[in-house]
């Protein structure tokens, strides 16, 4: 049975992530009303929010340490929060500020926090190969850290995903591939683009375990991930997990969702994994006041991060030209050679 303290940690991360997305939605839409204009408002660019997908983030990341690696896709905030990414600096990055995680260069789809080995990418399934690489590094260094690649169910038809499964399997890499199945790839319902209901069946072709958690429940995810992460940490190889989640918002902010039946949108908001975990906490004897305190503290933390981020200066335009290479363009060669070549004519 999952310890109450762990349930409380997961609950805290879930309400943090939910409140975070709802608040970002408000902030993002400010200045974009009445007519939605993607280039207006305080938050630049596209914004893909993950409200309804929190269980997949916390149930897996609860088993991870800072030295474990996570790669996330274009919808990354809930996973970043569960992995322990610096919330203030992440928020500053999303607002395009100088003290953001990436100095304003990356933005919400390209967040990097090396302190907790978190990265995300806006290209579908392209977090899978680097996660395999992090697993490879752990294996070569004889460390027991693991890597987790998050992807959406739409990504399981992408070549990078298949190749990574095979690469991880053939080398027994300590990797867990986590498919968050929210049923929609932008406007494409899963059944129109993938001929299996259960994406974890893909594992069979690569001789690795495939497990699907088909109810949106943090505890069920926690239990399935305990086996998957444990298998990786014990050097028994990769696992493919699929978790049913729900997309409570559009693909991106501003998505009219005209392609999506109303009852599907309603259903996504009715099945709430946060309510479910809250009921679990109560059933385990956690007092209402404790739950309220956890929630309040989480919401305060989000407000504080957003306030702080909005207070940060925008980057100096000249810094656009910095950070291109780690070393000077000439490489590490900065000394005169201490030798002469035979036959040299100078």
């Amino acid at each position, binding site marked *: 049975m999952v310890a109450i303290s762990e349930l409380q940690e997961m609950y805290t991360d879930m309400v943090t992530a939910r409140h975070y997305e709802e608040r970002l939605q408000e902030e993002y839409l400010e200045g974009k009303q009445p007519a939605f*204009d993607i280039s207006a408002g305080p938050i630049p660019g596209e914004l893909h929010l993950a409200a309804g997908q929190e269980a997949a983030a916390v149930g897996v990341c609860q088993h991870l340490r800072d030295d474990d690696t996570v790669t996330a896709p274009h919808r990354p905030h809930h996973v970043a929060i569960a992995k322990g990414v610096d919330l203030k600096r992440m928020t500053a990055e999303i607002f395009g500020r100088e003290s953001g995680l990436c100095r*304003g*260069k990356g933005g919400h789809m390209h967040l990097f926090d090396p302190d907790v080995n978190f990265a995300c990418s*806006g290209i579908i399934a392209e977090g899978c190969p680097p996660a395999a690489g992090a697993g490879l590094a752990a294996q070569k260094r004889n460390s027991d850290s693991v890597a987790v690649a998050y992807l959406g169910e739409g990504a399981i038809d992408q070549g990078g995903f298949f190749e990574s499964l095979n690469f991880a399997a053939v080398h027994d890499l300590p990797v867990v591939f986590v498919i968050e199945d929210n049923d929609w790839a932008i*406007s494409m319902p899963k059944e129109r*683009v993938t001929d299996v209901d259960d994406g974890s069946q893909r594992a069979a072709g690569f001789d690795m375990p495939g497990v699907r958690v088909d109810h949106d429940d943090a505890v069920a995810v926690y239990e399935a991930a305990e086996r998957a992460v444990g298998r990786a940490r014990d050097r028994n190889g990769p696992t493919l997990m699929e978790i049913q989640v729900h997309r409570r918002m559009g693909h991106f902010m501003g998505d009219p969702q*005209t*392609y999506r039946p109303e009852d599907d949108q309603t259903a996504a908001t009715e099945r709430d994994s946060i309510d479910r975990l809250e009921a679990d906490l109560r059933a385990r004897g956690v007092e209402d006041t404790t739950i309220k305190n956890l929630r309040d503290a989480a919401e305060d933390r989000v407000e504080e991060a957003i306030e702080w981020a909005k207070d940060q200066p*925008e980057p100096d335009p000249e810094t656009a030209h910095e950070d291109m290479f780690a070393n000077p363009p000439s490489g590490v060669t900065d000394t005169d050679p201490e030798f002469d070549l035979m036959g040299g004519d100078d």
Partner: protein
Amino acid sequence: MSEQQEVVERELTMSRGMVEAIAHEMRANDEVFYMGEDVADYGGIFDSTEGLLDEFGHDRIMDVPISETAYLGAAVGAAQEGMRPIAELMFVDFFGVAMDQIYNQMAKNTYMSGGSVSVPMVLTTAVGGTYNDAAQHSQTLYGTFAHLPGMKVVVPSTAYDAKGLMHNAIRDDDPVVYMFHKRLMGIGWMPAPDGPKTPVPETDYTIPFGSADVKREGADVTIVTLGLHVHRALDAADSLAEDGIDAEVVDLRTLVPLDRETILESVRKTGTLVVVDEDYRSYGVTGEVVATVTDEALAHLDAVERVAMPDIPIPYARPLETETQPQAADIEAAVERTQ
């Protein structure tokens, strides 16, 4: 235009111009079909297929899995069978996952087969920045596609050009990469500048590839550009006119083939060249245009400037993107340096 010809008043957005040509070709030829992500029920994230599903149904306006290697390669295969597929890459930045099908198959099969195979397909793709979508969703990559031999590369800047170039692209027996700039499409949530919405005839017509268009005539300086930056160059030209500088704006319209003669003719007249490109500066469009002029008209060239994206991934924050992307003011400043 002769007096007998009808004056066209109907104005369309660039996306409507593009879609009208596709619909026309699909009506005329059952072998034309469109594949891409979110092209059916959604109508294309950037309105590139808006309304087509209603007329043609899911068999011909096909949503596909997120499997660019498979569906772009399938378009190559269907084209080699003689069909005329149009396949959409949602953002040009996503070419990376499917580049083999694009440049080792689509672009090379005609030549490698000694001309016995042709690949009559159109690869449509959204390009460009201006809305802070950062390094993986804002590139144009004009130079990348133009550099690799075997693809005709089209970059419309107005509704009129978008329609005529699309008719030509679908009818052409070779692979055509049709790169439409998001900011020009006339999408509700990404307002376009005034320029791309133009009168468009209802009838079909083709614009030949390799025919650059002088969008503004001028005597003092030649500004060569394409896509969004045609409009920024026109803005800059208006502003320069107030300072007594008369700029000519040449819209390349296609990179492959490149209408070198129109560029040379203009530079022979003005003696001054400014090339403006939303792609990276090095090894790209600006270098190619300048080299064209130095190869063929060096004696006529008094001054030359390039305005392009610096050689860095496109940053996210607004001040950073604005710093890197060529603005009308940057074009004006470059022109002033040549005077």
